[in-house]
């Protein structure tokens, strides 16, 4: 497994090696590798169908007890087959679809890397590892949505999806950590083993909520569903791959993985079912009033995800089984529908449902494929969709307690699905054709290959459900360990469930009839929708974000006001206050030396320096203040000289001279001092400066009192002559003992010279 993952990773990156000239087969080459992966997993199907679990483990961070662990069981193999299988078809489709656009290397890189990430996600046996792949899919989704990055909507939608899924990802991580802490491990099998302890622990509910937040954001559940319709800005191959068949199912996958760990508690059942049922209804309801073809599909996807989540929330054997079957059903028909939608978009130049229509003559093959897929979506025989829906109804019927509400809502949501199916089927192929930007035709085998294969599979599995029976059964055993034998059948005989199906179809058809026959009514309904549900999630989201940004901006403007002097002011006030406090806190030392003015010439020197410093502060002339500054510098060098620092004194004299020269050089080109500060400001600044100077004086006095027993200097003094052959210890330190520091210093000087050079030698425009 790891080998296959590695292969996919390498292929993804080697995409950049494939030259641009090979763009004509790029998608096909990549599809071949997807096929390799698919065949690999298909061969493993026999093993997992026997009920075995294949695991692999590699050392990763043994210090943290983390290993790269992979696990192929009944659940992950279904997902792996979906990812790679649909991957093959999507890459072939993308080859045709993406032809007119640029940046194909980038696009295929992201798409292929996504298949790697998604596969890694479903194969992970370790929750931390799963989380990493989970985040990787979110990021890649962002890059794929924003493929048309010149469109502002695409960028905004990509940001929304990234923000929401990444937020969910973080909360998922927090949840994983909480639960992992209880179990003492991050390996899923350990979690399953300690399921009872986890459920009994007080962190169970917070952990569950955090993880569910991750699940709901990723799988576009209410109230986070709105990023999915926005994600339709992505190129259609992306929509059919990420946003219908695979990535949005990651949440569902996680629910299946965690069901044996955390499932079957009231919290699990109620929270998940409630969210699922809401999402299901909302998705179905809004799907009907969309005018964009991909928008309709996006909302039906939301509805389908709602159903999946609801079924896993109900968490009975039957419901989980129906979820597994419906997962396949939905992947088959929704990927098909997306690809067909992209095809129609390409051929007619529009996705606007008010314009599309009457394509039956121009696109007959497309019509057949679409009709079959729509049958599956509506849950009608002989498609696999029918079996899925029947199972769902059965699971709902058998449910005690709140069953009746869920059943009613479920029937309603399904009726919406039927209505959407009928409406789409009629409108696209028999409805009135509006002004189409292009004259449609049906050229392009690659476009229809994927949809055809998927629809055919849907039909075959619908007719002979026994083929997938074993696979579903094994997966069911993973999710709900003590499974019950329910065989998949197309015909269950007349019973309550079938009656419900008929009822659903009736309502749905009636709805569709109204929508088709009274387009005005649809318009009114749409308007009603927008007035009743004036609360737009997208808008609310962007308001929230811009509000937050505004809040931050206001606060940043307050704290980082940009006034350079006030920064300095703050720094010095805070520093001197803290130093005063520290001095006060460690008070109780006495001055070791006496106040003496001997030798008097040094005292005079100090007095002159002080006078010069004070003079500099208040001088109004530039030249005199600079000269006074020079006096201070030379005074310092004399002090150094007197106190046994000869090298220091020489350096200070030379440096001071150079500084003075440079000041004088630059001075003639600068304006005279202007009186800029008011008297009050000056007094304030003086107080701060005095406080700082005072604290430094005290600090210096205190420092004198500290007894050093210079251990480092002793080393230098002892070894300077014997080992480094130098009598001048200061110089030996500079060039031998601490030569690396000196090298750094010379480099700094060089950088300063470069900086000066660049600043003054380059011309720039006057502001």
């Amino acid at each position, binding site marked *: 497994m790891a080998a296959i993952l590695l292969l996919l990773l390498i292929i993804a990156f080697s995409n950049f090696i494939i030259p641009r000239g090979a763009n004509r087969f790029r998608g096909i080459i990549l599809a071949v590798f997807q096929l390799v992966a698919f065949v690999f997993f298909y061969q493993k199907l026999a093993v997992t169908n026997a009920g075995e679990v294949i695991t692999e483990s590699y050392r990763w961070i043994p210090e943290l007890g983390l290993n790269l662990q992979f696990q192929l069981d009944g659940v992950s193999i279904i997902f792996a087959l979906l990812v790679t299988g649909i991957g093959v078809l999507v890459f072939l489709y993308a080859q045709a679809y993406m032809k007119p656009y640029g940046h194909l290397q980038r696009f295929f890189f992201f798409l292929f890397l996504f298949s790697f990430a998604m596969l890694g996600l479903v194969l992970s046996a370790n929750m931390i590892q799963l989380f990493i792949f989970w985040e990787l899919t979110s990021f890649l989704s962002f890059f794929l949505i924003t493929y048309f990055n010149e469109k502002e909507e695409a960028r905004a939608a990509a940001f929304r999806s990234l923000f929401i899924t990444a937020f969910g990802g973080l909360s998922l991580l927090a949840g994983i950590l909480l639960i992992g802490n209880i179990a003492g491990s991050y390996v899923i099998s350990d979690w399953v083993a300690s399921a009872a302890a986890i459920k009994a622990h007080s962190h169970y509910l917070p952990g569950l909520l955090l993880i569910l937040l991750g699940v709901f954001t990723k799988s576009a559940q209410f109230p986070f569903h709105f990023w999915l319709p926005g994600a339709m800005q992505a190129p259609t191959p992306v929509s059919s791959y990420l946003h219908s068949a695979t990535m949005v199912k990651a949440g569902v996958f996680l629910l299946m993985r965690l069901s044996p760990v955390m499932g079957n508690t009231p919290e699990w059942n109620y929270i998940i079912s409630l969210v699922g049922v809401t999402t299901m209804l909302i998705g179905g309801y809004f799907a009907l009033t969309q005018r964009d073809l991909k928008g309709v599909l996006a909302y039906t996807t939301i509805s389908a995800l709602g159903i999946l989540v609801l079924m896993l929330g109900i968490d009975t054997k039957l419901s989980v089984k129906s979820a597994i079957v419906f997962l396949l059903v939905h992947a088959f028909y929704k990927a098909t529908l997306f690809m067909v939608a992209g095809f129609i978009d390409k051929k007619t130049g529009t996705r606007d449902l008010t314009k599309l229509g009457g394509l039956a003559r121009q696109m007959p093959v497309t019509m057949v494929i679409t009709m079959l897929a729509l049958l599956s979506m509506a849950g009608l025989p002989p498609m696999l969709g029918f079996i899925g829906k029947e199972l769902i109804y059965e699971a709902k019927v058998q449910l005690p307690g709140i069953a009746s509400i869920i059943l009613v809502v479920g029937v309603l949501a399904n009726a919406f699905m039927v209505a959407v199916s009928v409406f789409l089927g009629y409108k696209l192929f028999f409805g009135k054709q509006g002004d189409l930007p292009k004259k449609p035709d049906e050229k392009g085998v690659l476009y229809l290959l994927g949809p055809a294969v998927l629809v055919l599979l849907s039909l075959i599995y619908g007719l002979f459900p026994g083929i997938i029976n074993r696979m579903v059964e094994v997966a069911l055993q993973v999710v709900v360990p003590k499974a019950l034998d329910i065989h998949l059948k197309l015909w269950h005989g007349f019973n309550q469930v079938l009656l419900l199906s008929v009822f659903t179809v009736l309502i749905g058809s009636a709805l569709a009839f109204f929508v088709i026959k009274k387009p005005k009514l649809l318009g009114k309904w749409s308007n009603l929708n927008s007035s009743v549900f004036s609360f737009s999630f997208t808008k609310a989201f962007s308001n929230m974000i811009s509000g937050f940004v505004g809040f931050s901006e206001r606060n940043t403007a307050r704290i980082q006001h940009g006034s350079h002097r006030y920064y300095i002011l703050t720094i010095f006030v805070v520093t001197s206050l803290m130093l005063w406090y520290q001095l006060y806190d460690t008070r109780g030392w006495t001055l070791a030396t006496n106040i003496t003015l001997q030798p008097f010439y040094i005292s005079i020197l100090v007095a002159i320096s002080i006078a010069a410093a004070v003079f500099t502060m208040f001088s109004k002339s530039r030249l005199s203040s600079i000269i006074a500054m020079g006096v201070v510098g030379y005074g310092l060098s004399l002090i150094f000289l007197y106190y046994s620092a000869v090298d220091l004194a020489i350096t200070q004299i030379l440096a001071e001279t*150079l500084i003075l020269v440079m000041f004088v050089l630059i001075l003639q080109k600068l304006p005279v001092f202007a009186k800029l500060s008011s008297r009050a400001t000056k007094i304030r600044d003086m107080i701060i400066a005095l406080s700082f100077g005072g604290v430094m004086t005290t600090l210096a006095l205190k420092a004198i009192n500290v007894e050093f027993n210079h251990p480092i200097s002793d080393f230098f003094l002892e070894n300077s002559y014997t080992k480094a052959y130098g009598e001048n210890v200061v110089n030996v330190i500079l060039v031998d003992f601490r030569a690396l520091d000196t090298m750094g210093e010379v480099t700094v000087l060089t950088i300063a010279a470069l900086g000066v050079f660049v600043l003054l*030698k380059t011309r720039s425009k006057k502001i």
Partner: protein
Amino acid sequence: MNSVILKIASRYVRLILFSAAIFALLRGHNLPGGGFIGGLLAGLAVVYKGFAYTFREARQSMRLKPEFLIASGLSIVLLSMIPGILNGKNLMHGIWYKIPLGEAMEIKIGTPFIFDIGVFLTVIGVTVIFLLVLNRE
């Protein structure tokens, strides 16, 4: 500044300053001096020339350009590390070679001294760049 006295004096003063710079560099290991002090002194020599003539002329009359001085100085600093490594010691471990001169005298040349020459050259280059660039503008 266009003073004949300054110009004539500059010739000798510069000679003295340069000699002092080299002197400071050479004796740095045992007596006050060294690369920094020598470099600054040599820099001052260029200042003197700049004041006596113009800084443009000062630059043009320099046989070694300041950029070259900096580059070669830094290279020498790096080169001085090599003997230490070659001798299997730590980076920058001082290695000394003794060159006997006659009976009782010998010259000791060590990597720290070479290092100091690198510092010397870099400091000259940096100082000259500072002066020339600031004045040119």
